[in-house]
Structure formats: structure tokens, C-alpha cells
């Protein structure tokens, strides 16, 4: 698949709007998780606006379409913006983020159109995605299941149960992406609980592993997803180690764990929005 420069530019424009949505939602709620949300924006934009095979509307069973599972549920503002901007629910829901009576809970729930599994308590999404991928096989459905995980989240042991399970059962219709930003709430991952050589670890578990060091460059992101798709159906699950920067797109938030779970104040919001062109119209 050839992706033109114009198409890449269009995806970058979507990403800019999604980032505006993220900081505006978190600012309005006065809490939430902007850092990781901004860091994996490009990946989810590439998936939902270009590379996932999605059906119009929302059906929980998702038969005959690609599925996405968010395991690191705290990047909910990103997920909600993506789902809303791709048509699952009106953008007018976004001001309700984290507020009483809103469908947009602090962490994703299945009451939101487009969300197939609650997440927030970490480490469960890989197993869930594997289950959904197995059902695709039972249903002779050739679609792909995508999942996204934080790197700090890999400290949860259940991931490694799932990592053993997927190759053993030849779950080769699964692309799990690790948001490899090297940060977690208490500081750099290397300092808190080192993950060591993640590539070697997943390879030792018999996964196909692709590294992408430029996880915030849209063309690189698109290309790594295409490469991962080409590796499906060959008997092994696929893992993308996507190096991103927490807080990407806003200079004072980039590359630090300090914006993992902190909302910008009015002044910081203005500084942030000045760096992100409004491309699709604010909600």
C-alpha cells in the first residue's frame, strides 16, 4: 500500500485536532492523563483513520471487522477523541469527560460506543485481545485484532501469562503495540522497574517483534503497522515496540513523566493549544 504525502498530512491534521481534544478534555475535568494520551495519538490516528478495517456504526460482536482493545485505559481522553472523531458518538459528549452523568468515565467502559472492554486496572488487555482473536478464528473471520499497552504496564504479571499463551495457541491474527515511552507515574521505567531488553523478551516468548523508534512520526507509524499486518497469519502473534515521547506535541509536556496524570491550568492550556493547529474544529 502506497500512502501519499497528502494522506500523511491529513492524518497529521487529525492528530493535531485529537491532541487539542485531549488537553481540552483534561483541562476541563481538571484531572486525567494527558502524557501517555499525547504520546500514542499518532498510532491510534493511523489505525482508526487509515489502516483498520472498520464497519460503520457499532456492534459489540464486531464480526467481519478489525477490532481494537485499549489495555492502558488511562489514556481514555485519546481513545474518546479518536472514537468520537471517527463517528462512534457525537463530539458534544467530550465536554462531559470525567463528569457526573457522562458516558465518558475516567477510564473506558463498555457503555461507550466503540469500546468493547473496560480497562484501567492494568495488565488485562492482552489476554482480552487474545480471546477476541481466538473467536475471530472460530468464526472464520479473517479480520485482525489490535491492542495497545503501556510499557510500564508490562510490569503486571498477567501480560507474561498472555505472552506465553498467544504463540502456544498460534494467535497470529493479533498485533499488540507497546507504547514504549520509558515513563511511568513514579519516574523513568528503567529506574522504577527495569523492563530490560523487551525485544529479546518477546522474541524469547516466540513473538514476531518489530521495533519502531519514530513512534510520533506519522509516516513511520503507518509503515510499521503495514509491516505488522504483513506478518499476521504466519503462526505467531505480532508485537510492535513503538518508541514514543510522553506528552508529544506540546513542548513543556514532552519526554517527562510529570504530565502522566496532571491537568494543565488555564495558562498552560493556552500555551498548549497555541502549538496545535485546530484542523477539524474544536468540540
Amino acid at each position: 500500500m502506497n500512502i501519499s504525502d497528502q494522506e500523511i498530512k491529513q492524518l497529521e491534521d487529525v492528530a493535531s485536532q485529537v491532541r487539542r481534544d485531549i488537553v481540552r478534555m483534561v483541562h476541563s475535568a481538571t484531572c486525567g492523563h494527558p502524557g501517555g494520551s499525547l504520546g500514542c495519538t499518532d498510532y491510534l490516528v493511523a489505525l482508526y483513520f487509515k489502516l483498520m478495517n472498520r464497519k460503520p456504526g457499532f456492534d459489540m460482536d464486531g464480526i467481519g471487522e478489525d477490532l481494537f482493545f485499549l489495555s492502558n485505559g488511562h489514556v481514555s481522553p485519546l481513545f474518546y477523541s479518536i472514537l468520537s472523531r471517527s463517528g462512534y458518538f457525537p463530539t458534544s459528549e467530550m465536554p462531559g469527560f470525567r463528569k457526573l452523568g457522562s458516558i465518558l468515565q475516567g477510564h473506558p467502559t463498555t457503555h461507550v460506543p466503540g469500546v468493547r472492554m473496560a480497562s484501567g486496572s492494568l495488565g488485562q488487555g492482552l489476554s482480552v485481545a487474545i480471546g477476541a482473536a481466538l473467536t475471530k478464528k472460530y468464526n472464520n473471520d479473517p479480520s485482525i485484532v489490535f491492542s495497545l499497552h503501556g510499557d510500564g504496564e508490562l510490569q503486571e504479571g498477567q501480560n507474561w501469562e498472555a505472552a506465553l499463551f498467544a504463540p502456544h495457541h498460534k494467535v497470529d491474527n493479533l498485533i499488540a503495540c507497546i507504547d514504549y515511552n520509558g515513563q511511568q507515574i513514579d519516574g523513568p521505567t528503567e529506574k522504577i522497574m527495569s523492563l530490560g531488553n523487551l525485544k529479546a523478551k518477546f522474541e524469547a516468548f516466540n513473538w514476531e517483534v518489530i521495533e519502531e523508534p519514530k513512534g510520533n512520526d506519522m509516516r513511520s507509524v503507518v509503515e510499521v503497522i503495514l509491516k505488522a499486518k504483513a506478518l499476521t497469519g504466519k503462526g505467531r502473534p505480532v508485537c510492535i515496540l513503538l518508541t514514543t515521547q510522553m506528552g508529544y506535541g506540546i513542548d513543556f509536556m514532552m519526554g517527562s513523566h510529570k504530565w502522566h496524570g496532571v491537568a494543565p491550568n488555564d495558562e498552560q492550556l493556552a500555551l498548549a493549544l497555541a502549538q496545535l493547529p485546530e484542523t477539524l474544529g474544536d468540540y
Partner: protein
Amino acid sequence: MKKYTFTEKKDTRSGFGAGLAELGKTNPNVIALCADLIGSLKMEAFIKECPDRFIQCGIAEANMMSVAAGLTIGGKIPFTGTFANFSTGRVYDQIRQSIAYSEKNVKICASHAGITLGEDGATHQILEDIGLMKMLPGMTVINTCDYNQTKAATIAIADYQGPVYLRFGRPVMPIFTDPDQKFEVGKAWMVNEGKDVTIVATGHLVWEAIKAGEQLEAMGIDAEIINIHTIKPLDSEAILKSVAKTRCIVSCEEHNRLGGLGDSIAQLLIQNDLVPMEYIAINDVFGESGTPADLMKKFGLDDLHIVEAAKKVIGRKG
């Protein structure tokens, strides 16, 4: 007292195995998962019938529960099988977030529940599982009493939309329920109509309650015995109707007295019709190794203890 006899004894887990095997033949959406306990859960017949619909998960229950949740997306009906301890306490957060809160149609099938797990001892004898499961919004909780009822319940829950916790056990017990029964989730079974005291029992305690009823009859006490197999949703109507007549009640379960069937009944009575009540349950302690029969006796769960509780609660009537 209605006469209950039996010609055969079997374990309730074998009833699960038989029900699952039946589903293997009749329901193509049923998928069975197990965490390295095929023999203990009696899953061999299902695996023989439909090997492609069995998923061995290894000793990794957390992953199994979340995989089961994912399997429902696309219409499959997963039945997970492991010991009750590893079906609940070990994987509570997975069940809470990925199954209960996410409203997934997973059937959590748990063997070796309660004190009658026996010789393996307290590490494996979970006595808190009913409480853990019934506290989850939307979770249906079922505890069956014999082989036939367990088989019927296993088949019935495949057609019952929503998460279900099905609890059964290890020891052989008399088979005394109808082999052709239709299991109705949430509907109490009237074991014996009586007028002096209501005895509500679940799981292995139902047979003990029947034996107690016979002894009470010899003492001139007419006991009404009700089997609550579905602890949640509770058949409130059946219980309230019975206590309106008997004016006292004994609850019987193989579970900690904190958080089990008895507490559900007590809550119902407090809000509707406050009559004297006694608990037959484990008194907030861990279990220990021993034969199932010796443990039932030591921990106060046998027929003799039910008789004493019935006499006591009748004495408390105003």
C-alpha cells in the same frame, strides 16, 4: 416429611462434566477453558466430543479469565473451569473489570468449593467465594446440591445471558434430585413443605437438611425445607412466603457465615419480615485437612447441627 432416597452417589463436579459434554453436542458456541485441571473438573467428555472447542490455558488463571471475556466478543459462550479458589479470589480483579463491569457472557465454573475439598487443606478450601461473587453487580451466583442439579444448571446457564458463577464440589454425595429436572435460574426448589421452621439450604448442605428434617419429624417438628440453588438473584418471594407461615428460619451453607447465603437472607428479612434466624455456616475461620465428612462435622455443617439450630430458632419464636 417427603421421602428422599438415593441409589447412587456421585460428585457434583461430575454433573458439571456431564452437562458440559451435553453442551458440546448441542451448542456450537460453547467454548471450554481449563487451567491444568481437566481431570478434576471432569472435562474429558467435552474434550473428546469437540477438541477444537477446548482451550488449555495452563496454570495461569488470570489470563484464562480475561481470554474468556474476549472470547464473548463475536458470540462465543466461554465456560472456565478450575478450583473455586482459583476461580474467584485469585482472579477477582479480572472478573470484576473484564467480565462483570464489562457485562460479558462468561460462565465461571468452580469445583472443589468449600470445606469438603478436604485433605488439601485451607489453602484450597475457599469459604469466601459466594460473598466475593455476589457483591459484583450483574453477577449470577449458583451453588448446586447434587449431580443431577449440577448437570441441569450447567446446561441451563448456556442459555442465560450474562456472567454466572457456578459453584460445585469434590466429594461424592447422594443423587436425590430429578434426573429430568428443568433448572430455572433464580427459582427456589421446595424440597419439603412444613409449618414449624424454615430450613433454607444450598449446595452440599441440602442433603444434610433433608436428613435433619427426618430427625426433626421424629421429634414432632414439621420442617419446611427450601433449596436455594441461586443465591443471586435470590428468590425472595419463596423465602418470605415460607417465613410468613413458619415464623423462623435456619440458613445452611458451606461458606463463611460472613457474606454468604445467610447474610442475603438476613438482609431480606430485616427489610421485610423480621423473624428469628440461625446460621449454619463456617464461623469466620479457615478450614483444615481432613475427610469431607469429618470436616462437615467439626465445622458444624452436618445434619445434627441443623437439628440443633432448628430447635433453637423455634425456641426463639415469640
